[in-house]
């Protein structure tokens, strides 16, 4: 579905992604784990067109998307729930969700999706008319994911959904991710490697811009190096 081949990204002199190749197949959850500053967010930002790659290929459903601008990437069926939630803080929950459905034309389907998002995150329905900036961190994360789902993506890019959340909330968010995967392919980026590896099918390990390992998550969870570096055991 998504195929990234030998991608290189620079920020001025910083080589943020070095020959990165990643593949995501339809129906999978694939995770990329790595320390702070490894280049995880950069990879997602490059896929969604916010950052330009110097070389390499990014194709989605056999279409080259590397030169597309962000709104064209969304149109092609990829949506990115960015790191740090980035909800529109002065708008209501309802307005945030409507903006998530910006490219959708069909009103009826949109109402259906709104209902689905509210079913997934009942707390968003309770807070529907509240200003997004006044939500708690967990609720903002739900809004960020819910808003992304409103575009009915084929592929959802999730950047650190557990960041800054209490353990109970992390559990809750991950239960919802399990629910979302029934309809949507997911590329999940996490520093919280344990949660991500427990949830995903396949995983990549990113270290200072390079992919150093790729394996099914079951194997990564047992791998001594991964255990030592990312699982604190």
């Amino acid at each position, binding site marked *: 579905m998504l195929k990234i081949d030998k991608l290189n990204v620079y920020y001025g002199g910083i080589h943020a992604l070095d020959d990165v190749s990643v593949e995501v197949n339809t129906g999978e959850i694939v995770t990329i784990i790595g320390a702070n500053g490894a280049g995880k967010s950069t990879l997602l930002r490059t896929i*969604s*067109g*916010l950052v330009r790659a110097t070389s390499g290929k990014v194709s989605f459903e056999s279409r080259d998307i590397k030169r597309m*601008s*962000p*709104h064209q990437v*969304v*149109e092609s069926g990829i*949506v*990115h729930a*960015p790191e740090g939630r*980035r*909800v*529109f*803080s*002065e*708008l209501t929950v309802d*307005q945030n969700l*409507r*903006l*998530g459905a*910006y*490219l959708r034309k069909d009103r009826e389907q949109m109402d259906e999706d709104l209902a689905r998002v509210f079913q997934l995150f009942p707390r968003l329905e309770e807070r529907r008319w509240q200003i997004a900036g006044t939500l708690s961190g967990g609720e903002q994360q739900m809004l960020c994911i819910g*808003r*992304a789902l409103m*575009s009915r993506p084929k592929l959802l890019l999730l950047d650190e959904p557990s960041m800054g959340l209490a353990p109970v909330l992390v559990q809750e968010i991950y239960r919802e991710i399990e629910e979302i995967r029934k309809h949507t392919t997911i590329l999940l980026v996490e520093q919280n490697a344990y949660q991500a590896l427990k949830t995903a099918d396949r995983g990549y390990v990113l270290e200072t811009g390079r992919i150093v390992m790729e394996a099914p998550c079951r194997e990564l969870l047992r791998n001594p190096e991964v255990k030592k570096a990312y699982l604190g055991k």
Partner: protein
Amino acid sequence: MQQFLQQLWNGLAIGSVYALVAVGYTLVFGVLKFINFAHGSVLTVGAYIALYSVLRNWLPFPLAFGLSMSLSGVFSYLTEMYAYRPLREKGAPKLNLLITSIGVSLLVENSIVVFVSPDFHPFPRVLPSAPITMAGMRIPPVDLLLVAVGLVLMCSLSYFVNRTLAGLTIKAVALDRDAAALMGINTSKTISLTFFLAGIMASAAGVLIGMRFSVNPYLGGFFGLKSFAAAVVGGIGSVPGAYLGGYLIGMLETFGAAYISSNYKDAIAFVLLVFVLLYKPSGLLGKGTQEKV
């Protein structure tokens, strides 16, 4: 009392002009985080389009007014497209945008002096000039039009920005441009739309102020600067703030001129600006963001 009401009305009329122009500074600042000093020149262009359409008998006044608003909207859109966008795409610093906008405004002002005329033109008489007497106030018909058109445009703009999806994209881009792009919003289009709307509002003010005083190449510079003060007083980036700032400066100016001295009239806006910046740097309705001009 009579005198007070009369001044209140005058303040409302001139305040409408400031508010209509101020909202353009605020909208553009919202999406691009820079002060478009060429915004005043859109007002001048609008006044000239209406003036010539009526003077040459091309169009009846209401159509000339409409034409002026749409063409000025397009003019404002084109300034962004050809002057600011190329700079933004090259990642130029905000200061370069600012200086470019000052350049655009000088270019427009001087082009009018050279290619059109340096004179002050009275606007042809399209409205009756005899004031209407209402509750003891004497109101020139143009003021009535100013207040009414101002209210209609301002309410429409607020409705558009807060209640329609296309309008919400302006707010979304202002709040977080990258996040807006991730929603599938074409942010360049939203920025174009913002300039277009700012142009429409400014041109309405330009035509009406041209009718009230005269049409001249310096119209935009003069009213633009005070409206900029109004936008900052209200809180740059806030639409209701721009309206509030506009009416407030309009009122203070007329009351200041009537009860203190008309010599200080043009200084009042800037005295208020200094006071507001001292006590509430983000403006009366502004959010406390620390964005440098």
